[in-house]
């Protein structure tokens, strides 16, 4: 079984092998270093002309990637920490995602920006954030986030094959994790269903999809925390839950979420980013603006980071980021009302 990091590494290697248009660029990608998180290890040795070390110029690099993409290559840009996506804001928002539409479809912009987000490693206020939230509402940009139950490498390959700009989020804490592979319809203790097509949404159930009491919506690096919370609640209180895990997290409609909530009437949304104006806001809004609001049996609960920066000190970081106990508490509250 591969780790999440290996899955990404292998996918990059396979795309380099099969598609001559693929070009990797970013800071410190080349061997022997192989990237700050070692994700591109070995690749420059095998494809010396197609893995490019760049200066520290994140602002321009997003534009360089757009230029490469328009001219027919398939650039995959690594931004070393997701916190530095702030540098890419202009080239993404006012350039890369605009070109296709405003040029009336005359160009494709098949670029991928891969970047690790998330905390839990004590890297402090500027190296731990989950900043994907600021890009979620940008029309024309797909944000893909793999969980460790997704086939991360396949998601990345699909992103590289996509003709649109994709922001590909990798949670730092997932890198060393084993990827969960479905065996006879199960991943670990959960029955699993996959959506069709690219960028799969997973549905996980600890009741074989039999009469779940609530829906938990989550993506990416928070899934391990959610499965742990749900596992504990099953043992402790026999809670049956369905977990919905999209990978295309800012898609305009997530049918699995709507369906599941229609059945359960109870929803907990979990994300690592700060609470306000985050991913969970849009997800909750979709419920309250939808007719299915009638089937809600309890207020929706959002579990997210406190609206604060992230500290270096472990006690403070933990107190800011959502923990297993916070998820359990939210589930209990949703079930209680």
């Amino acid at each position, binding site marked *: 079984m591969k780790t999440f990091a290996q899955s990404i590494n292998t996918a990059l290697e396979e795309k380099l092998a099969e598609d001559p248009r693929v070009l990797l660029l970013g800071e410190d990608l080349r061997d022997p270093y192989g990237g700050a998180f070692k994700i591109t290890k070995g690749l420059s040795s095998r494809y010396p002309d197609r893995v490019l070390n760049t200066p520290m110029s994140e602002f321009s690099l997003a534009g*360089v990637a757009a*230029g490469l993409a328009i*001219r*027919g290559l398939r650039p995959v840009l690594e931004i070393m920490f997701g916190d530095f996506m702030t540098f890419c804001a202009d080239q993404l928002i006012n350039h890369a995602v605009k070109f*296709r*539409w405003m040029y*009336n479809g005359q*160009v494709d912009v098949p670029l991928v920006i891969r970047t690790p987000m998330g905390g839990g490693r004590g890297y402090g206020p500027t190296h731990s954030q989950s900043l994907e939230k600021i890009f979620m509402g940008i029309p024309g940009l797909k944000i893909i986030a793999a969980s460790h139950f997704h086939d991360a490498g396949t998601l990345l390959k699909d992103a590289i094959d996509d003709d649109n700009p994709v922001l590909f989020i990798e949670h730092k804490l997932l890198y060393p994790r084993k990827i969960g592979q479905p065996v006879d319809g199960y991943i670990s203790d959960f029955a699993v269903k996959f959506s069709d097509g690219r960028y799969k949404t997973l549905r996980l159930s600890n009741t074989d999809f039999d009469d779940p009491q609530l829906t938990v919506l989550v993506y990416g690096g928070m899934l391990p925390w959610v499965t742990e919370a749900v596992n504990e609640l099953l043992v402790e209180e026999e809670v049956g839950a369905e977990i919905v895990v999209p990978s295309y997290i800012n898609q305009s409609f997530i049918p699995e979420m709507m369906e599941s909530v229609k059945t359960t009437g109870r929803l907990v949304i979990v994300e690592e980013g700060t609470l306000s104006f985050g991913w969970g806001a849009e997800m909750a809004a979709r419920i309250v603006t939808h007719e299915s609001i009638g089937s809600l049996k309890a207020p929706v609960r959002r579990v997210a980071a406190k609206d604060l920066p992230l500290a270096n000190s472990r006690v403070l970081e933990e107190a800011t980021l959502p923990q297993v106990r916070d998820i359990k508490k939210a589930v209990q509250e949703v079930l209680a009302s």
Partner: protein
Amino acid sequence: MKTEVLYEKMLLIRLFEEQVGLLFTRGDLFGTTHACIGQEAVAVGVTQGLHQDDIITSNHRGHGHYIAFTGDVEGLLAELMGKKTGVCAGRSGSQHLCYKNFFSNGITGGMIPVATGMALAEKKKKSGKIVVCFLGDGALGEGPLYESLNMASLWGLPIIFVVENNSYAMSTHISEAVAGKILERGKAFSIKTEEFYTQDAGKIFSGFEKIISHVRTQVQPYFCLFHTYRFCGHSKSDDCCYRDKNEELEWRKKDPLLILEQRLEPQTVKRIQEKCRRQIEEALSQAAEAPFPDPACLSQGLWG
């Protein structure tokens, strides 16, 4: 390159810009535009030595670059008028043009990194194509320019940075916004540089032709500085209250059209004038008759 050809291109641009100005005054246009009246020699001199499949990136003041390179007066005028027959079907307007391998964006300096990426793509593809990236003196304030100069130099990219110094960024004089000598900013990144102190499209053409050939054969970047002037305001609403009228008059004497006109027979000038006028008129009547885009197609093309 024949003087006639250069003159015709420049005149076409001039008449186009004047026509656009008129349309605004008449209230027939929505939004804003930035005319390049006075700067035509750079647009024409730089672009006429390029191959048709070379690449140009441009900025807010891009009509001249566009017409000089693509000749597509019709598509541009219809675009400004927000018509379906516009080159981007009315979506992009004046500042965000795309026609084959011509690309612009209204964010000052924004296309510089994109152009750099395009040059990298052409180098990787060994296509032999080069990129010309237009920017104004105002864009010298934007840091990504220096990131891009650095990468272009490090990677030996086939790109020419063309700085059109017209002494102003909107109302701000270069003395208020640009420290030191502009050319040094290219040299600091170990990029070859060249400075042009002329409004003569012929001289620009022949000087720039050599640079094109160097960039194409050596696959190395170049940084070129042109001293020019916009005779008009920054945009439609600008009355140039921040400029000295004598300065304007001095530059008017160096009108690039006058410079070439003196080298042509009066009949030739007249013939070209009529031809250009007719072309603008036709474009105008075509565009006027064209339908507006259908809002039902609004979301087409967001996703590929």
